């Protein structure tokens, strides 16, 4: 019987017995997530998504250190949920932010980060793997450098978590963002790893939840789902990676062999096993997406006009791609449930579509 009271009943930080189950479920999820990345449970904070994790990480460290440190470093291919908070540090707090470029292969040179370090560098934020081109960044080398200088390092591992080994006992990263919804978990819930002792100014203040590091009644269902999705993804990592790689490589080989005028964007070896990013001469990415979508195949593009904004992909621009190549870009991501037949069908649909679209063009391609 629970005559009273919806309020505390719903709130897993309350002391009541009815709330104990929710509390215990959250604690189990915390243990699961911690185990996935070699962290202590007390270092895991649940958030409302990877965007919040990234915002909280960048602003959290910078604001905590702002009185003595007014410089931050990131790379040109970060997610906007890192880049925009960095711009806020400039606009609101007079920070200087060094945005380190990447090579034409979409990988940052740790030497460039090292050269950008200053005595007043508050933090460095580098993603583990890029969401558009799948390139894997040398975070181990960067972590060694930042740790040696006592500078907190934030890593956006949203895309890496399903495919790469993340062991924070061996890689001295201080803050790490994760999201379960890229791993078949619920949307609108995320994780922030915060190494013990990292300077911290909370993004959300209010109640004392998450040990005063993130206020707000917890999304219990989302947290439980996140714990499950992450630990399942880690358990299955090797199998899923091998499977994705086999399918991806098959798809890529068939596209490169069968369709003329195609180039790959981003490094081909230091790359997530599930990602392909191509530019297809003379076709517009948005037209490719629609054509594929009409055939039941989902993809994305770095072209302007596809994302709801009119800006082309800042990631592809950072590789130094010409406008045409960005406009004609196509990203395909291999999922857990995909089959080899689907890869073949995708190549066929894409081939037909590209041929048809090039046939409409005033220019002559691959003919």
């Amino acid at each position, binding site marked *: 019987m629970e005559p009273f009271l919806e309020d505390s009943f719903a709130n897993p930080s309350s002391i009541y017995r009815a709330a104990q189950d929710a509390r215990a479920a959250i604690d189990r999820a915390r243990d699961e997530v911690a185990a996935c990345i070699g962290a202590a449970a007390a270092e895991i904070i649940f958030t409302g998504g990877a965007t919040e994790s990234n915002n909280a990480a960048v602003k959290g460290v910078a604001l905590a250190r702002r009185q003595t440190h007014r410089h931050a470093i990131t790379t040109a291919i970060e997610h906007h949920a890192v880049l925009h908070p960095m711009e806020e540090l400039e606009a609101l707090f007079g920070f200087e932010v060094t945005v380190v470029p990447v090579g034409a292969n979409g990988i940052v040179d740790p030497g460039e980060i090292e050269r950008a370090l200053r005595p007043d560098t508050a933090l460095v934020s580098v993603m583990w793997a890029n969401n558009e081109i799948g390139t894997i960044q040398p975070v181990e080398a960067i972590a060694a450098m930042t740790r040696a200088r006592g500078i907190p390092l934030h890593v956006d591992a949203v895309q890496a978590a399903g495919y790469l080994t993340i062991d924070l006992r061996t890689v001295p990263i201080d803050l790490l963002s994760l999201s379960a919804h890229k791993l078949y978990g619920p949307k609108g819930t995320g994780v922030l790893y915060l190494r013990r002792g990292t300077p911290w100014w909370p993004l959300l203040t209010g109640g004392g939840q998450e040990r005063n590091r993130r206020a707000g009644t917890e999304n219990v269902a989302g947290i439980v789902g996140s714990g499950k999705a992450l630990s399942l993804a880690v358990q299955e990592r090797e199998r899923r990676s091998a499977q994705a790689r086999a399918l991806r490589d098959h798809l890529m080989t068939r596209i490169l062999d069968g369709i003329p005028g195609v180039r790959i964007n981003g490094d081909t070896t230091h790359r997530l096993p599930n990602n392909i990013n191509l530019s297809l001469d003379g076709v517009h990415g948005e*037209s490719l997406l*629609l054509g594929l979508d009409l055939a039941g195949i989902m993809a994305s593009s770095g072209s302007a006009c596809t994302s709801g904004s009119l800006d082309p992909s800042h990631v592809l621009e950072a590789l130094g791609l010409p406008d045409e190549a960005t406009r004609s870009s196509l990203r395909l991501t291999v999922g857990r449930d995909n089959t080899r037949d689907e890869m073949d069908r995708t190549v066929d649909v894409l081939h037909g579509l590209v041929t048809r679209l090039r*046939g409409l063009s005033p220019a002559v391609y691959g003919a």
Partner: protein
Amino acid sequence: MYSEAVIDHFNHPRNVGEIEGADTEAEDENPICGDRLHVWLRVAGDRVLEMRWRAEGCAPAIAAASVTSELVAGMPLQEARALDRERITEALGGLPARKAHASALAASALRKALASLPNTET
């Protein structure tokens, strides 16, 4: 997201190709998006007889070119000169707000071609 008409024109574009010995032609480009459209027109007296086109661009840009080629067939020159993006968008059954500018390329390429016509009438 797209209307039936946009998808139909994207899948089955009408009047694609060149016109040998066209009365006028023009190419235009949307400088922001990079979409390109080349149109060829046959004209007789004060009417457009036929429009053909080639385009490279997004789906609504292709659909806009296609529907424009249907709209202008047999259209008085005066009316064709006044054909604006709103009318093209309407003929496509509407466009999402952020793609509303896709009709502009068709309207401007057409206007450009008509502008270079030897001024026979009026």
